[in-house]
């Protein structure tokens, strides 16, 4: 039985449409060693530019990522219609990878 590990990719989109562009992202890699991790800003190159790993959720799905969580959508509570806070369109994707036991 092969030993598998989970990799998570979290993509934040411009709109809830899964084809919409990526505005932020995070990676959490269960195949990594204990002293390795993705952290803030790890996509920034020497000039400060950033490029998401995929252009959209569907783009990531075409590369084998499985969507495991959709963002729920709720109307704003009265009085909070113009407040901004967290990124609203957060999709969690996974890949399972075989690792050497």
């Amino acid at each position, binding site marked *: 039985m092969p030993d598998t590990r989970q990799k998570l990719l979290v993509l934040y989109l411009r709109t809830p449409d899964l084809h919409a562009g990526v505005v932020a992202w995070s990676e959490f890699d269960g195949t990594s060693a204990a002293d390795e991790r993705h952290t*803030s*800003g790890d*996509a920034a*190159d020497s000039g400060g530019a*950033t490029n998401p790993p995929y252009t959209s959720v569907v783009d990531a799905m075409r590369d084998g990522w499985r969507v495991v969580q959709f963002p729920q959508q709720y109307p704003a509570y009265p009085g909070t219609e113009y407040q901004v*806070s967290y*990124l609203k369109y957060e999709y969690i994707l996974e890949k399972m990878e075989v690792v050497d036991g």
Partner: protein
Amino acid sequence: MADSTHLLNSKQMALFVAEGYLRFDELVPDDLNRAVKAEMDNQAIPREEAGSPLSAIWPDAAVGRVFRLPEIEGIIHSLVGPDPLYDHHAVHTVAAGHHFGQHWHADAIIDTRLHFDIQFMYFAHDTPREMGGTLILPGSHYRRISESDIARYHNFVGQVPMICKAGTVIVLHHGMWHCAQPNRTDEMRYMFKLRLNPTVRQLRLWNTEDIDDPEVSHILSTNQPWHGNEERIEHVNRIHFWRFLTGDDQFDNHYWLSRIENEPELV
């Protein structure tokens, strides 16, 4: 009292309202940078009592001279007025060879005021990308979050690492999201942070001669690439903030508030 020639102008204030920060490259002279670096190396900058007048602290220290530079006093006066209070400072360090980025956060807690504090980030030595630089997220200052609520996020389109020469200063709205970055060099990396509170109503404290410049409206309309579908809500927050800063309750930009405030009662 700040020299009026060093006050911010309306276009700079609009940029602060839109992006939440202003950047001043190589503002502090090199001799002062070296003196402050030595004070930080020697842990010689005492913590003062929160709520003390800024004018009363660090009378003899080099870091005190930095915040009494006419250019810095002009920035302070424009944003928080002539007699701000010292809230706290921190000598932030990232050790040589520290390869993990800090989690994204905003300082303090959820803050619902329109009144605002400022935070200076002062880079007393050259900070190339391999040394990190503080990573900041332009346009994040209206987001209501509490400190490390945002730690799950890693990268944003539009994030800005502070890659700069010695003497560079940025001044932030208290709500700005930021985080320290890895230091892949063999030298300690410093960033000196100072938070100030206003003691006066923050009303037209800057040089308002250009208040009607059309560029102000243009700057207030500039989008951040990570805002996505919330761009228009961000504009509403900027309009409310500009009204607060100017005292002009009728101010609007691209008709966003005029439309939703229109509730005719004529029958």
